[in-house]
Every structure is written in structure tokens, then in C-alpha cells.
């Protein structure tokens, strides 16, 4: 057993475009991936996410790496997993319909503990929906979309700067936990252009791959360290390992029995649950003494900000809780807040997804109000304000 807490390394300067830029969220996400060390992307065109891989296709031949446009999202979402087992850091990028097609391979990545990042620039759904207009309707799909039991990590940026910063974080978490990470953007954040500051490579911390330290014969690809995460060998290194999506033992060999299933699935879930408190990232402001806390994420948090300011002008005590990590859900945070406030208000560009998580975590200690919106545009601040006023009564 080696210590799972590992030293962060500096980013490879070849992929870091240090300087101050004017970028949209899609392009900033691509720069974040390059800075994080991603040298492989497999994609399939879909609005409003395509700009991420368009930039990657332009940049990667001058950085050193591979972009391949596959024949569909089914292919893209497993080509990247092959690349990871070949030794690369890899990601794919999509939107609603493509995300639906990728679900099987998100499960395969979780089951085979393949570190990688899936970027979803969300648009209106269901089905083909609104290809060029925003929504946040895939939040539950990101958590539960693939079959079976697993735990998920999902991050939500609300600006191009965060598209850069949190993409690096998404890669770091995927490597640390050997798990797929969902990077949940939305059309507005993806197409919004703002200042993006990219620091020098030596100021960017990179979590290195948890590579096998023992020699072939002594290493098992699915034998966990103390934090329940195993180290991995890559193909071609002499380990002669086996990887399967079947229920498997520590060697990676199929084992069709309830004991192995229990041991494996519990570990896949617990390796993330155990670290949930530490890996959850939120932004809070004005929580102290608040009667109402607005919980939001992604583009909706920027509209909520305006609504909060309007409410404060009316003398209401309103706090802000923004979720940068949506999965695992910051339940402990919500539970603690619920004891001191009257109500939560949860605006989101869907008909009510994360609001149910807030209500569950609040456990009746505070009331919960949703502000549903089917997508296609953002909320009007007044729509959120009305609910804040109702909640404050």
C-alpha cells in the first residue's frame, strides 16, 4: 500500500497558452484540457459543443497529440478510453443527443476505472430539442444515465475563466479517483466570450496518473490503495493484464458471483463517497444571517446573482450558494445551512432536477422552492426574485 496523497506536478508548458485572452467558454475548455495534459481527443460534431474540438484539432498538431473525428458518439466515447489505456490523457465533447449515446461508455469507464473527462455543453431537450439554445436538463443524466450503480463526479462552470480552471480540475479528479468526470457546461457559458487568464505552466498543478509502481507479476490493476483507488498499468508495458466490463476481481478477471459484485460495486461507490466532503466545491456569499439561500449552478447562477441583488435592495436577507461540484451533491452543506434559514430557492434551466436533491438534503429543516424553466433562454431575474419574495414570507 502506498500513500494515495500524491504530489501535484507542474503542467507541461507545451500545452499551456500562458497570457490574458478573450475566449468563449468552449475554447477556454479546450485550453484547460491542453493545460491539464490532455493529448488525445475523440469527438463527433454537435452544436453547441463543437468549438471545443475544433480548437483542439487546430492546436494539437503544434503541441503533440492526436485528434480524431469518429463516425459517431458511440465510437468517440470508447476511442478515448482506448487511448487512456494506451497511456494518454483523453477526453470527448458533446451535447444532449450525443451525451445520450455515450452513456454505455460512461458506465464502462466507471466499471474499468478509466480516468477521462466527458464534456457536455448542454442544450434544450428532450431529443433534438434546441440545438443552439441553453438548458441544464442533463444534470440527472450525468449522475444516473448509465445503467447500474456507480458514483459520479460532475462539475459546473459559470464563466469562460472557470471553463479553463475547472477543466483542469476535472482531469485532476479523474486521475485521482480513476473515474470518468462529467464537465457540465451549457450553451450560454460555452458561447459567452470573456477575459480568460492562463497562468504559467509552473503555477498549474497536475495530478499525475496513478501508474503501477510494482513490477509485472506483483501489480494488480484493480487492487485498491488505502483510498480505495487502484493504480493502473498501461498496455504495452509488460504487465499482461486483462480489463473487462464484466464484474471482475482485483486481477481484472471476470467473476460472476454476488460476493465479487458486492466488493467491486461498493468500492466503486465508496472511493468517491469517502472523499465527497473534501472534493465538493461551492461558492458562498451573504449566507450569515440569511433567511433565504439561492442555490444555483452554471449560467443560472449569474442570473440568480442579479435576482439576489434586487431582493437585497428590497431589504430581504438573501444568501448565495453556487455549486461548482454538482456531483457528488453537497448534501452536508445543504443540511447544515437548512438549520439556520427559512428557505432555499433553486432556479435551474430544467423542470426540477437539483431542486429535489436540495429538498432531500434539507430534510424538512427549511422549505425548498424551485424555479423551473424549460430552457431556450435564461431566467428573467424577476422570475427568481418573485420566488425569493414568496420564500421569505
Amino acid at each position, binding site marked *: 500500500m502506498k500513500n494515495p496523497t500524491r504530489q501535484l*506536478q507542474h503542467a507541461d508548458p*507545451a500545452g499551456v497558452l500562458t497570457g490574458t485572452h478573450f475566449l468563449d467558454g468552449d475554447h477556454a475548455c479546450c485550453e484547460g484540457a491542453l493545460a491539464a*495534459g490532455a*493529448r*488525445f481527443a*475523440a469527438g463527433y460534431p454537435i452544436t453547441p459543443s463543437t468549438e471545443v474540438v475544433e480548437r483542439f484539432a487546430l492546436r494539437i*498538431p*503544434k*503541441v*503533440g*497529440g*492526436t485528434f*480524431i473525428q*469518429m*463516425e*459517431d458518439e*458511440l*465510437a*468517440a466515447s*470508447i*476511442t*478515448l*478510453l*482506448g*487511448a*487512456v*489505456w*494506451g*497511456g*494518454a*490523457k*483523453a477526453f470527448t465533447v458533446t451535447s444532449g443527443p450525443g451525451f445520450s449515446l455515450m452513456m*454505455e*461508455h460512461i458506465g*464502462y469507464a466507471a466499471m474499468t476505472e478509466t480516468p477521462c473527462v466527458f464534456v457536455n455543453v448542454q442544450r434544450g431537450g428532450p431529443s433534438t430539442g434546441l440545438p443552439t439554445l441553453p438548458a441544464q436538463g442533463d444534470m440527472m443524466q450525468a449522475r444516473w444515465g448509465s445503467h447500474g450503480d456507480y458514483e459520479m463526479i460532475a462539475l459546473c462552470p459559470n464563466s469562460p475563466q472557470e471553463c479553463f480552471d475547472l477543466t483542469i480540475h476535472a482531469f485532476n479528479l479523474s*486521475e485521482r479517483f480513476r473515474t470518468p468526470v462529467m464537465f457540465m457546461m451549457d450553451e450560454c457559458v460555452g458561447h459567452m466570450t470573456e477575459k480568460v487568464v492562463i497562468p504559467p505552466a509552473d503555477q498549474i498543478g*497536475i495530478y*499525475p*496518473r496513478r*501508474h503501477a509502481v510494482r513490477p509485472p507479476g506483483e501489480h494488480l490493476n484493480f487492487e485498491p490503495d488505502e483510498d480505495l483507488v487502484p493504480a493502473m498499468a*498501461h*498496455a*504495452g*508495458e*509488460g*504487465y*499482461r*493484464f*486483462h*480489463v*473487462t*466490463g*464484466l464484474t471482475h476481481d482485483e486481477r481484472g*478477471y*471476470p467473476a460472476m458471483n454476488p460476493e465479487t459484485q458486492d466488493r467491486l460495486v461498493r468500492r466503486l461507490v465508496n472511493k468517491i463517497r469517502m472523499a465527497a466532503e473534501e472534493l465538493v466545491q461551492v461558492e458562498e456569499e451573504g449566507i450569515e444571517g440569511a433567511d433565504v439561500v439561492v442555490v444555483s449552478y452554471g449560467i443560472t447562477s449569474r442570473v440568480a446573482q442579479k435576482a439576489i441583488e434586487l431582493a437585497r435592495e428590497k431589504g430581504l436577507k438573501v444568501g448565495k450558494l453556487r455549486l461548482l461540484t454538482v456531483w457528488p451533491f453537497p448534501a452536508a452543506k445543504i443540511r447544515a445551512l437548512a438549520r439556520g434559514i427559512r428557505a432555499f430557492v433553486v432556479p435551474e434551466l430544467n423542470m426540477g432536477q437539483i431542486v429535489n436533491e436540495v429538498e432531500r438534503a434539507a430534510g424538512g429543516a427549511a422549505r425548498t422552492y424551485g424555479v423551473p424553466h424549460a430552457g431556450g433562454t435564461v431566467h428573467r431575474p424577476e422570475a427568481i426574485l418573485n420566488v425569493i419574495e414568496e420564500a421569505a414570507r
Partner: protein
Amino acid sequence: MSTLEVLPQEVTNPVEPFLRTERIPHIWCPGCGIGTTVNSFARALLETRMDLDKVVVVSGIGCTGRVAGYVELDSFHTTHGRAIPFATGLKLANPSLTVVVYSGDGDLSAIGGNHLIHAARRNIDIKVICVNNFIYAMTGGQSGPTTPLTATTSTSPYGAYEPSFNLPQLADAAGAVYVARWTAFHVRQMTRSMSEVLKKKGFCFIETLSPCPTLYERRNKLGEGLDTMRHYKEKSKVRNGAPTSEVALGMRDDIIVGKFVDRERPDYSELLHHQMITQLGDKYVEAPACSCG
């Protein structure tokens, strides 16, 4: 190098070092031809003296999909139909690997058919070994895109009426640089073809017919596995270089076997490299051998 030049004394069968013997007995039925193809594959590895640390087997789902689990190599049992795109990522991330996709006809030509034609079109440097038993055997013998007209299967109880794929023609038309067909009876020829593709650059496709006595032969009253081997022996006609349009299979017709295609065409990596050098000159940074620190 870990090529076996001298066999260890305790080894009783020359292919034993290529197998995960702790996983034997395998799941294949008596009379099934998949194990025969694995034997040929192991002999091809032995003959070609491949560095076994650099040979990777990628399988999809199904009876043949289980091959990955029995070979003592880096091996991946992926999702249904997606062995080829997984292999594509693996090969591009580490070009020093010899990547072999080993899967069945349903996995490769039905659910994975789109990936088969596109990998052939790109001429990705992977080797595809397709064991064709004419049905989905793992799930109980349903019909698929290779089921011959009139054959009875669990989902064509009154006989199949959909036209079937001629797999060599499909692979040829899509751009494969090497296309061959053998049967489980043709172990030497199959071994030779496998040896050839292990040394050939580009997208290679070998179809191997296999009996499925449990589900295909039994339902169609074609006898035991041995009867099918006799059928292969009697009905097979070797026609190397035959136009692939002339090698379609029928229920009890002659079986045209042989090496149909063996040609040169720049592979994906060569085309990529050429285009980038042309456009970017010395600004082009070739993908390094991957390493994540």
C-alpha cells in the same frame, strides 16, 4: 523481448504460454471452432516471434468476445460492437502496439458495422479476426446479418429471409488492405494469414467460419461439430485472389476460401503525418509516446 524461443520444460503444449491457464476451462461448447482459431492465433504469434508485451487483444461481446479473457497478453473485453473504436484509440495513443481485434460476426458487422467500415476506410493499423458462426450464440442463437437465407434460428423460426452480408466484400469495399477467409478446418492456412497480418501495416480483416453445434447446426439439423468440419472440408474451394464479389456464402453452397486482398495503401498515421508536414512543416509536433507521469 519476451518472444518464446525455447519452451520452458513444464510446458506441455506449445501454445500454453499464450493462455491464461488459470482461467481454463473456457466457456466454449464442445465442437465450437473459436478455440481452434485461438490455437492458430497463438501459433502465428509463435511463428512471427512477436514481442508479446506489445501485442494487445481487444474483443467485443459474445462468444468470440471472450477470447480477450483467455490470452496471456494485455487484453480488453470492451462493450458490444465497440472493440474497433477502442482499438483505434489504443493504437493511436501508442503506435508501438500491435493491436488485434478478435470478435464475432454479430459484434463486428451488426452493432459494430459502422466502426468496421470506417476503420477500414481510415486504414487504421489494426488486425481484425472475425469468427463467423452465422448467429448470435452467446444469447441463444438469434439470427444476424450473416445468417444464410432460409436458416432456422431462434428469431427466424420459419427460416431467415433477410439477405446476408458478404463480409470479405464489405471489408474490401471499405478499404481493407488484407482480406482473407478460412474455416476452422483450415488451421494451417488460417495461421499463415494471421502471421501475415501481424506483419502487415494497415487495416487487415480475416473471416473464419466456425461451427456452433449447440445453436446453429442443431437447429438446422446439420449434425455435430465434426459434421460441420467435414462439410468445410468437402465444400471449401481455395481461390486466392478471387474477386470478393464472388465469395458470398449460402446455406449449403460451396465455401470460397483464400486470401482475396493483399494490397498497399498508406495507413491513417502515414496520411496524417504527410498532411501535417505538408501544411505545418517544422511547426508540426508528432504525438509523443504517451506518458501521463
